[in-house]
């Protein structure tokens, strides 16, 4: 995996970027780097400024502050047509009056490539996305997934140094989405094209990205690899955004233990000082249940409030000792779905408990 902090200079570097519309500051002081060949996701809830950030990088919007450098050159002030990128939009924005081949060849015509070379390139691109049989079809005759592939082939036609993807999968249904997600990832690896994808879907980001930039309210909340962000979120926001999270307001530290409403829980490595608005958190999958609790600290006797079958796991909502705890338990281990009102002992393993700042 490429290392953006290594000796080689980053392929794309964003520093101190800012953009406002009227009084609304949409992007504030955003900075991050992308190494050559890396797949980076910009993840955040809608309205967090992630699409604006992408448009700034594409040059569709002009930044108020900061710089964007691509392959060593400052591109901050360049118009889009002088930058080196391909883009896939959420709507795909296919030209309705051109067939599949016509859409893919559009950019090649723009730059005046010779006819024969164009034909060869289009054929290769269509083969790449598996649409060789549909070259003569029009966008209105294609399924959503096929349209998405056309948009991708079109974006790759000019062999851009940077591929920008704006929520490219969000218009598709779940099965197609999962399938295309993997395909996209495979294609990116094979071509080695540096890719920046905007998404609000954390599962998507976690599964395809080398690194994820989490944004919130115009700012970068945290940057890191998927596993880092999942297991060591920097804030309550990131923790909650990347997956289900048990979180309780942390009242005080008592030595290596944390006091929360209704309980006192032992921590493996208690912080020296508390961050502002501290929360004590644990992922439901880390909660130990049933036989697992033997020999573990922070045991609590609770009653099952509800149980939801998730396929490979069961999500239990448990209540007791003034707390409500979610626990994801592999179905194979339980062998059945517990009934509401059933008594159950859970443990919150000290090593899995996190103290997170709750700001923002």
């Amino acid at each position, binding site marked *: 995996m490429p290392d953006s902090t290594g000796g080689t200079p980053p392929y794309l570097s964003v520093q101190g970027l800012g953009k406002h519309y009227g009084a609304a500051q949409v992007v504030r002081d955003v900075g991050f780097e992308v190494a050559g060949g890396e797949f980076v996701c910009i993840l955040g809830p809608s309205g967090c400024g992630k699409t604006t950030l992408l448009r700034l990088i594409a040059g569709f919007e002009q930044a108020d502050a900061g710089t964007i450098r691509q392959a060593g050159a400052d591109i901050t002030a360049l118009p889009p047509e002088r930058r*080196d990128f391909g883009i896939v939009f959420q709507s795909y924005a296919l030209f309705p009056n051109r067939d599949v081949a016509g859409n893919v060849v559009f950019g090649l015509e*723009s*730059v005046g490539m010779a006819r024969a070379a164009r034909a060869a390139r289009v054929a290769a691109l269509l083969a790449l996305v598996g649409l060789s049989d549909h070259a003569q079809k029009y966008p209105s005759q294609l399924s959503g997934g096929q349209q998405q592939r056309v948009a991708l082939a079109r974006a790759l036609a000019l062999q851009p140094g940077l591929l920008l993807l704006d929520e490219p999968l969000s218009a598709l249904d779940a099965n197609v989405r999962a399938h295309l997600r993997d395909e996209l990832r495979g294609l990116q690896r094979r071509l080695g094209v540096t890719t920046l994808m905007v998404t609000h879907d954390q599962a998507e980001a976690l599964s395809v990205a080398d690194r994820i930039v989490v944004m919130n309210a115009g700012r970068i909340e945290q940057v890191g690899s998927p596993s880092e962000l999942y297991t060591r979120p920097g804030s309550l926001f990131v923790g909650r955004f990347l997956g289900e999270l048990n979180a309780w307001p942390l009242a005080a530290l008592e030595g290596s233990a944390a006091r929360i409403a209704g309980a006192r829980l032992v921590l493996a490595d208690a912080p020296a000082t508390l961050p502002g608005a501290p929360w004590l958190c644990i992922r439901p999958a880390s909660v130990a249940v049933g036989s697992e609790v033997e020999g573990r600290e922070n045991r609590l006797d609770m009653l099952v409030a509800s149980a939801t079958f998730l396929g490979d796991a069961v999500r239990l909502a448990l209540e007791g000792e003034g707390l409500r705890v979610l626990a994801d338990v592999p179905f194979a281990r339980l062998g059945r779905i517990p009934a509401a009102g059933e008594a159950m002992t859970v443990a919150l393993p000290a090593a899995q408990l996190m103290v997170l700042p709750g700001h923002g």
Partner: protein
Amino acid sequence: MWANQTLGKSTMSIRMLGRLAALAVAFAVPMLAAGAQAQQRTLTVYSSLDEDQAKALIRGFEAKHPQVKVNAILGSTAPIIARVIAEAASPQGDVIMGNAVSALMAADARGLLLPYKPAQFDKVSPMMRDNRAEPVWVGIDAWAASVCFNTAEAAKKNIPAPVTWEDLTKPIYRGQITMPSPLSSGTALLAVNGWLTAFGEQAGWAYMDRLHENVARYGHSGSAPCRQAATGESLIGISYAAPGVKLINEGAPISIILPSEGLGWEIEALAIIKGARNLADAKVMADWISSREAAEISAKFLPITAYDDIQSLPKNYPANEREKLLKMDFGKLAASREAVMAEWQRRYGTKVPPRN
């Protein structure tokens, strides 16, 4: 690398725009040329005469002066004068060949007409020429306010034909009369002036008060009331003879009545537009119009022309029009024009006339 190619592309697009522009110019040039073609000497003539009469006069003029090509713009009396006034900044026409003297006076009052005494001015009947020291107009023909009466509808309704203006105020004609409004029609103004002359100021307005009770509607065009009478849309139209004659020739069942109290009348005259581009030929036209030859052409259409001694009565034209003309003081009438219009507007302009 991309920059160059993009630039190349966009200059190509601009070349395309250029080609489009060239096409547009190619389209526009012949149209411009159409307006500017001038191999021959041309004369631009505005005229409100009857179309057939105007064309006959132009043919006569062109036969006599083949070096001059006449471009005629025909239209109603008032729009032609409005156009001359609006075009004052750069006159487009050379000569107004036939327009009501009262309307010409409006242009003259704005200093838009060039005084000129045509060659045969002195041979023209004194009544038919501008007798000021510096004459601006010379008469072509004259016509009088008349009544168009639909005989077919009258027979159906058993209504007798009116003989006098006073007859028109009888209850039997209630709701059967249309006339133009003097606010937008010169024809109506001369009828009104005729009544004020024939009956006197006070009795004239009193007459119009009574007439108003019988009028179904006031329109905008001087000839329209006669046309409405001709098609049975009304029984009686206060108008003038020329459209009635045409309509009778077309087969309309109307008679043209010249009421016995006397008729308000109007001269149609020629005047040269100040700033005419073809001034020399405009004067040639004025000279020709004042000739007996031109008057003889007009006499085929109307009985009263610039030469008293030419006797004619075009087919279906009512006899004795000349005898019934009132003695009118055109200078005084021109001066009181605004006042008469205002008084008419005050009395009849805002009231809805009765219906049947």
